[in-house]
């Protein structure tokens, strides 16, 4: 237990919380943006995976991390566009559409990974680039706090901005009003001439944009390579975080952080010699438990009313 405590109360551990929460923040904002507009995007996982692959590959091709990021975002948005086209214009069931995109991403990335790297596991043979870490002057020098807040990957800071952006967009801008109106009562939006399909398309594309950043972080920040199914359920954890955050950007960010802690914990205790197979399930157990508690509470509240 002592060893456990020693492990937890270190700047390294708190630093790692931010690191592992970064992709969750992007994905959960993607979940918020689409769900608010009434188009639950369950393909967050797949879109991030596609972005992770595109980021790795194009940063290698152009020898530039920035180009990698650009293409990561582009591909994730393109995947979102495919999903929007099928679900909104061709009226594919949105859940099945999401399943299709996930399956496409999972198999498709391995397919292309094999074509470019002749490996079905990882891309370590390709010299892809990594996005830079940022040392914040002054703050970085503060003892204890400094090493926790400073020195993160640039996308970690972008993730924080993404939360603020999502909050501002939904709460303050005309587009945010339209997204919320379409999600809550599309007839109302339609009756004042707001195109429901167009608005929902925008929602899905924005969701794809978020996944683009999240995926890019995975292969160009979290680690420096692509490996098969490397998102490992983060898209789904983000969905759970979004449900528990009641679709609110800030609440969702808070629950994402909670799951980030669980993730960081599982990484940290792995060094203690506990059975690693079981330790790896901690984030998923936490999500399952969180979702269960949330549902039970919502059920009780509803019942008593």
């Amino acid at each position, binding site marked *: 237990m002592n060893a456990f405590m020693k492990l937890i109360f270190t700047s390294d551990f708190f630093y790692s919380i931010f690191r592992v929460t970064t992709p969750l923040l992007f994905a959960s904002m993607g979940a918020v943006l689409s769900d608010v507009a009434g188009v639950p995007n369950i393909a967050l996982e797949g879109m991030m995976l596609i972005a992770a692959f595109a980021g790795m590959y194009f940063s290698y091709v152009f020898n530039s991390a920035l180009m990698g990021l650009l293409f990561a975002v582009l591909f994730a948005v393109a995947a979102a566009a495919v999903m929007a086209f099928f679900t909104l214009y061709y009226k594919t069931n949105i859940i099945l559409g999401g399943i299709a995109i996930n399956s496409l991403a999972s198999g498709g990335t391995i397919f292309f990974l094999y074509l470019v790297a002749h490996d079905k596991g990882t891309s370590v043979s390709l010299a892809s680039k990594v996005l830079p870490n940022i040392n914040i002057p002054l703050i970085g020098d503060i003892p204890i706090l400094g090493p926790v807040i400073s020195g993160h990957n640039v996308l970690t800071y972008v993730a924080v901005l993404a939360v603020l952006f999502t909050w501002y967009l939904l709460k*303050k801008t005309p587009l945010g009003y339209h997204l*919320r*109106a379409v999600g809550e009562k599309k*007839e*109302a939006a*339609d*009756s004042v001439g707001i195109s429901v399909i167009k608005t929902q398309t925008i929602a899905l594309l924005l969701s794809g944009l978020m996944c683009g950043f999240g995926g890019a972080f995975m292969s160009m920040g979290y680690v420096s390579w692509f490996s098969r199914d490397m998102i490992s359920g983060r898209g789904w954890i983000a969905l759970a975080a979004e449900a528990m955050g009641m679709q609110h950007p800030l609440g969702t960010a808070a629950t994402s952080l909670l799951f980030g802690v669980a993730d960081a914990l599982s990484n940290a205790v792995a060094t203690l010699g506990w059975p690693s197979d079981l330790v790896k399930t901690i984030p998923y157990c936490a999500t399952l438990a969180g979702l269960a508690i949330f549902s039970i509470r919502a059920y009780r509240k509803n019942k008593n009313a």
Partner: protein
Amino acid sequence: MENYLLEMKDIAKIYGNGIVANEAVNFNLKKGEVHALVGENGAGKSTLMKILFGMEAPSSGTVTLKGEPVRFSSSKDAIAHGIGMVHQHFMLVESFTAAQNIILGMEPKKGFSVNEEEAVRFTEEISKKYNLEVDARAVTRTLPVGIKQKIEILKALARGAEILILDEPTAVLTPQETDQLFEELTNLKQQGHTIVFISHKIPEIKKISDRITVMRAGKTVGCRNTEDVTEKEISSMIMGCEMDTTIIRTPCKRGDVGIAVDKVSYIDKNGVQALKDFSFSVRQGMVFGIAGVQGNGQVELIDLMTKKRGLKNGDIRLNGESVKKMSIQDIRKMQFGYVPEDRIEQGIAGHESIEENMISNRYSTKEFCNKILLNYKKIAEFAKKNIESYEIRCSGGKHLVGMLSGGNMQKVVVARECSHEPKVLIAEQPTRGVDVGAAHIIHKKIMELRDEGCAVLLVSADLSEVLKLSDVVAVMYEGEIVAFFEETEGLNEEKLGLFMLGLERHDEEQIRRAVQ
């Protein structure tokens, strides 16, 4: 030829499934009038207005606005041409404030943000201009129906509506609210707006409109100046005399108490007391009619009786057994039938066949099931019998229910709920939105059940239906019984109306007679 503001000529609308909703319809508007569009449910009023508002494209015919031929491809188009519509079901975002709803889609901006202050100022300004008072900052969810309607009207006016279509605006209003609405409409008329008022309540039409267009079975019957016609004449124009829909009511043979509602109170999620100390009973062999404007506690009462909501205060007994501890399944095991108000939402499974829909309340009984397997041969026979007896128009028992017309769908529901000799039947708006022929069949079947000794509770906002079928009538207003009539002889819609609107009330002793 007169100079009309708007003219719709020879409009026809045939839907994809072959249903003819409009045929040879002619409709016109003069500037600055209140024009009533009347007709029974399913007469084609809504379709016509959807065409005018750009929500549906006409199959043929022309629309001329201010002398120019127009063709609206969307409601956005119609709005741009100065047409506004207040739908029967409000098109409001409940979590938004009144101001946010009004400026939705035309938000004033400050930088990238919506200028909330300007939105509120604008709302207050037009609210004052048109004398439609609303609290711009109030969240819509918390507002009463009457205010929501004002927001809807303001929404249309804010978008420059000169022609305002109101779809059955009084159906959800209390009498005070109705009076106020009429004042506001008169005011708008004086400011030069033209109003289309859809309704089937003749006294209201007489009161508010300048001209009347009557529709029946998808066609226009005629257009008159309101002052030139009597209520009787309007009524006969609406009804026509194509079909004999009279129901002969044999004297009522009262049996045991079938339904007993005893001092039931209910407070809903929002803290509103929906039912107050509600008591009545229905004996076997009679139809107990409950009349009332929608939203006066009828839904809550029925939900409590059918266990869709939990009963806490008071007691309800069906066939002498308290439902308090029962589940829906338990109630369904009794001889019990329930025709729900919204057939598509809970009355049917649209993607399944008539046969499958016909047995949903007794699929596990010995009749159709040997504990494990269903007997599809018997089910088919049963469905066939009902299809014939209820004159359900379809290709056979395998026909998907979702592909039937509204009237035939409702017949499937009624057939299911009435064909197992129920001792208790709850019928909630059983003929809403159903064509006259289907309504007649449904009425006949309900009366047959009554004659066989079933206790029937009929809850309806359609007074002619209530008066036609009921042996006794209670009027429901704000969660209470405010009137009880032991016979329907000599009772008419006007008289019921006074009680429904809360203008009159029987004394307590008379109301207590509802418990028989």
